[in-house]
């Protein structure tokens, strides 16, 4: 059911072939998406080896979204998301070494080993997490937008959440305030069709999530989240709307996750055929490969070279994450409070 619906939606939002994306731009997206894919594959391996603990939610299949939105992000625009956050961190430019080392719980990790997969941040990369409570990041991201308006800095908050979080009450509390106060926030809904094991049809009375802002007068549109150029173009429209003082904008990115909800997902809620069908027909990286060759921007050898380079980065990250020391026991007690400067 989810598959049929996803296919139908894809037809409704074709990529705009006339966009003047230049070669370097598209190759940059390719490289970023491939980095996320290879990084996540390696994370899955390390999890299997027991080097990564706890929960680990992989972004494989959804790469075009974080990368396409990142393409329109200006320096100082903030990004915040939920627990499936590795892709966003890499897209934001965080060092794969520190992300992987956080996954393995090492002192060199982005959060010094104290956050883990779901709790990483980088003020340098404008990345505000990494939040483990479904929907909480929506209010927080609205607050980041509030701060932008308060400071009149012209910056936008890109606030990501999934189809599961779209049913949380605080999402609508946030929508209301965002439109009421014309806050510069772009809500990016990554609709991968399943909230853990519950399909959107089984959880949502209105499955067109881009319409969820209508009763707050927030415009929304549905986007093919498997097409990085479509994502970029939609994000560009949404960011321009928010940046110009018109308030929030909703983008519903139609996408699919290939892996389980987390590593320990028995996947009884969907068929292997459904997953394979999406991989075969809608894969965002293959889609971009076709575009690159169709436009004559890269031949197979060039793409292979990128892949080799990305694999090396990921292998280095895994090695770094494996070899880095665990946090010093004294770190247990640091970062609980900041010193008050009285």
């Amino acid at each position, binding site marked *: 059911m989810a598959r049929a619906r996803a296919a139908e939606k894809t037809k409704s939002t074709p990529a705009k072939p006339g966009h003047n994306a230049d070669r370097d731009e598209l190759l940059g997206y390719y490289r970023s998406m491939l980095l996320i894919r290879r990084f996540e594959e390696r994370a899955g391996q390390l999890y299997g080896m027991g080097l990564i603990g706890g929960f680990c939610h992989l972004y494989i299949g959804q790469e075009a979204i974080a990368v396409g939105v990142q393409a329109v992000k200006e320096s100082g625009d903030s990004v915040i998301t939920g627990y499936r956050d590795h892709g966003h961190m890499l897209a934001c430019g965080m060092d794969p070494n520190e992300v992987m080392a956080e996954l393995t719980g090492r002192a060199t990790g982005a959060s010094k080993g104290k956050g883990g997969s779901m709790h990483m941040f980088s003020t340098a990369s404008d990345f505000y997490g990494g939040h483990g409570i479904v929907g*909480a990041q929506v*209010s927080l991201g609205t*607050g*980041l937008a509030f701060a*932008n308006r308060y400071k009149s800095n012209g910056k936008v908050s890109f606030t990501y959440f999934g189809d599961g979080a779209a049913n949380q009450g605080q999402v609508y*509390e946030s929508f209301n305030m965002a439109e009421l106060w014309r806050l510069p926030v772009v809500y990016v809904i990554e609709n991968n069709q399943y909230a853990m094991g519950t399909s959107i049809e089984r959880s949502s009375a209105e499955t067109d999530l881009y319409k969820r802002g209508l009763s707050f007068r927030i415009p929304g549109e549905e986007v093919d989240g498997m097409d990085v150029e479509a994502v970029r173009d939609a994000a560009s429209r949404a960011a321009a709307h928010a940046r110009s003082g018109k308030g929030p904008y909703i983008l519903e990115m139609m996408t699919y996750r290939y892996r389980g909800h987390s590593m320990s997902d028995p996947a009884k809620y969907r068929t292997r055929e459904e997953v394979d069908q999406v991989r075969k027909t809608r894969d965002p990286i293959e889609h971009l490969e076709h575009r690159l060759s169709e436009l004559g921007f890269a031949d197979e050898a060039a793409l292979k070279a990128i892949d080799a380079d990305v694999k090396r980065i990921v292998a280095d990250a895994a090695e770094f994450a494996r070899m880095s020391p665990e946090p010093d026991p004294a770190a247990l007690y640091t970062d*609980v409070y900041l010193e008050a400067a009285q």
Partner: protein
Amino acid sequence: MTDVLMPALSPTMEEGTLAKWHVKVGDTVRSGDVIAEIETDKATMEVEAVDEGVITEILVPEGAEEVKVNTTIARLNGGAAQTKTEPAAAPEPAAAPTPAPVATPPAAVAPAAAPRDPELPAGATLSRVTVRDALRDAMAEEMRRDERVFLMGEEVAQYQGAYKVSRGLLEEFGERRVIDTPITEHGFAGLGVGAAMAGLKPIVEFMTWNFAMQAIDQIINSAAKTLYMSGGQIRCSVVFRGPNGAASRVGAQHSQDYSNWYAHVPGLKVVAPYDAADAKGLLKAAIRDPNPVVFLEHEMLYGTEFDVPADIDWVVPIGKAKIRREGSGVTITAHARMVGLALAAAEQLAAEGIDAEVVDLRTLRPLDHETIVQSVMKTNRLVSVEEGWGPMGVGAEVVARVIEHAFDYLDAPPVRVCQEDVPLPYAANLELLSLPSVDKIVAAARAVSYR
């Protein structure tokens, strides 16, 4: 003849000002007509006639202050319509049934004529300020000092605060910095935390802490934990404030004390002041603090006046308890409104020859157990008082710390005075029975003194 009485406009109102009469003697009024305006420190309200008739007497003049609730302010004779319906020869009524007595709380414990507080700076001028205005002054001073500070919450701006704590702030700072929110605690608490992560310093007012349960996820999971989870990267300098605990006759859902809920959580600081000087000085410290601070006020104290240092930048450090009364016979710990009860109990105990030391905790996290332990080492006896429930409570923590650090100094098992282990009832007598009282504290102090 109908008596028009001074109305109570809120659960805690005891008196008010008769600001204006809209009628004069001889005027005919109908039910629903506005006849007067009443002002309290919290609100101005119109008084409507509830009967038809002609005003025959005005007993309280316009502008009269401190008019007690239920004072007869005017008289009304029944209108023509009403007269007609009266029986021609009404029999003399038998003795009117006597209303059953309704329990009244003991008069507010006024810390009158207390000696000058040694903590207050020697040179400073003191002025009498209500806790309400002290809190407002703290916010105003910090907003003048730091452009990043802003206030958000329900009714904080145009309405001037549900309890008038933010009176005048909208006028001074404008709607950019004093922001009325929709009734969406979960959403606006999260929005405030997000703004703090981006470097602003929000003061998030909850109309009462009871409503903050809708927002507790953002307070704990987002505000308290993010510094740690980010390895020290993400700051969250935010103050969550509002009245906590039981007001008066507002029932179980509006009366809970959340002291121990928040004091349980690493990453939060939790402050619960008693007097106006602490309310002001601690709120200023809370706003300047780089960490999330839960600031628990008490509605029953908002209208109480205390000495506050004037004309100086009065900041009270978070994390320090205060000895409110020195004594050698028994240590009584308390915070917020319970401090007043503990002080009153100490006076009563003094008359019985028990010399109580009253320790005002002021900050619950970090708890200044050194001051408590030092006191118990001197008195060898401990009574803890809190307004909330006992199990897993503030008193449980105070007792545990004393046992850990001063076990050998105790001459008697400590006693906890707290709310009875039931939801707070509405009926006046049951409510009084449920809450801690001076008598309960006195009895506990006697018990640990084997008297």
